[in-house]
């Protein structure tokens, strides 16, 4: 397939390629059958597949325009719109001929260029020169904006990075001990769980029973635990600490009453006026003789 001279005779490498700098960071313009293509062959004839790769490497209409501007050393602030439009349209046609998938953005750009071209042809009123914007202004802004990020991408690609330029140092940890921490629980989470479970119980099971204050419940646990530890009789008065005060004694007394009511403890008195003893309920293995012994 013959290709027009204009396209073939590329004066410089495509934008973004730095000749004579085969640095690691260099982005190849294209790779054709395993070979890195950093500039167009200068032959009069380009094999269609190479041309295809060349054209496919463009990142969109702005990239094509930047390429056309750069290779002709055109000042981006003074783009000869008619000429650039002609070249651009020729590229688009070529892409179409090669049946490249042509993104809609390419055609939109062609339309935009045509519009700028026609506005450039209109005579600009001298008086309004200051306010009248150059019809190319928006295009120039977009080209520059794209160019700065294209350059930023190249800069980014040149930074020393892991995997390619930077190798991490690591030493072997032979006997690694996994230390498992236990989950944390906030008091708030605990309280909300309690609220939920009680509300659920009230709703579905209609459990409405008033219970003792927590101080009594705690004392119940303590008394039970103490009786559990001794597994024997304990003198009733010993359940009351001397230092717990009147309020503490009341709590202990309520706890003992509740424990009796729940049949968790038994009160035993060997004979009238003998000291009262307390033991865990259901401990029949303790013979009464033992109580006598404990008493003596």
């Amino acid at each position, binding site marked *: 397939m013959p290709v027009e001279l204009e396209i073939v005779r590329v004066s410089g490498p495509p934008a973004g390629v730095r000749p004579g700098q085969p640095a690691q960071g260099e982005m190849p313009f294209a790779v054709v059958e395993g070979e890195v293509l950093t500039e167009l062959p200068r032959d009069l004839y380009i094999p269609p597949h190479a041309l295809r790769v060349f054209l496919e490497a463009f990142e969109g209409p702005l990239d094509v325009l930047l390429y056309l501007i750069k290779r002709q050393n055109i000042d981006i602030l003074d783009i000869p719109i008619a000429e650039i439009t002609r070249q651009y349209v020729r590229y688009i046609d070529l892409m179409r001929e090669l049946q490249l998938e042509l993104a809609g953005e390419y055609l939109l750009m062609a339309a935009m260029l045509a519009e700028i071209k026609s506005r450039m042809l209109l005579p600009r009123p001298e008086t309004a020169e200051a306010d009248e914007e150059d019809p190319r202004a928006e295009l120039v802004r977009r080209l520059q904006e794209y160019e700065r990020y294209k350059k930023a991408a190249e800069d980014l690609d040149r930074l020393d990075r892991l995997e390619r330029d930077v190798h991490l140092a690591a030493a072997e940890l032979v006997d690694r001990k*996994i230390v498992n921490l236990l989950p944390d629980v906030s008091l708030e989470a605990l*309280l909300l769980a309690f609220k939920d479970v009680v509300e659920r119980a009230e709703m579905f099971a209609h459990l409405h029973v008033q219970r003792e204050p927590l101080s*009594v419940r705690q004392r119940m646990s303590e008394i*039970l635990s103490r009786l559990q530890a001794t597994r024997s009789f304990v003198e009733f008065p010993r359940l009351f600490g001397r230092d717990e005060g009147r309020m503490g004694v009341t709590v202990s007394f309520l706890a003992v009453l509740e424990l009796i009511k729940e049949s968790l403890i038994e009160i035993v008195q060997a004979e009238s006026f003998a000291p009262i003893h307390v033991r865990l309920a259901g401990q029949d293995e303790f013979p009464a003789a033992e109580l006598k012994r404990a008493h003596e």
Partner: protein
Amino acid sequence: MNETQLRNIVEAALLAADRPLGLDQLQALFEEHERPPRALLRTALGELEAGFADRGIELREVASGYRIEVRKQFAEFVSRLWQERPPRYSRALLETLALIAYRQPVTRGEIEEVRGVSVSTQIMRTLEERNWVRIVGYRDVPGRPALYATTHEFLDYFGLRRLEDLPTLAEIRDLDDPNVTLDLGVPAGAETRAPVDAEEPDGHEEIRALHE
């Protein structure tokens, strides 16, 4: 290439490789014209080892070659890098713990009755292993079910001095009210606590349970 360079290349390679390196592999790091003989590499390895003497790492020869390891004496510290928090406790566990706290001494069956679903053995075991609950007795009914209560460790963990520092159900319900803030982070020895519940047992009338 001088000795220091050689030593540094060997050090860098051993630390960058994710496997032990033998002498052959170390030689393969160099282009043919500058490839050090094995004896020189051994010298470099010896120097490297000597240089590690008062450092956090050491050189070890294992079956497939040389590698650099963390010194054993620092392994304990370094292991803490992988401390893992297990997933959070389940709702079921929190509810069980809460019921034990508020209803103690209480059997598993009684907890199940309030919750409406069974309580797994795993939950009870977790709570016991954490030392938050313990068995304080057995109810004198068929099967003699264990009675659970909370522990001192439970109080310590949640920053409570006494069980009655736990808010009442009415107070908990106010938690949903954004205008009410509950002093939950009870510091040990806080002096501004409400009077003990025994004085005003009515304050807890909202705490309900199953047994009449």
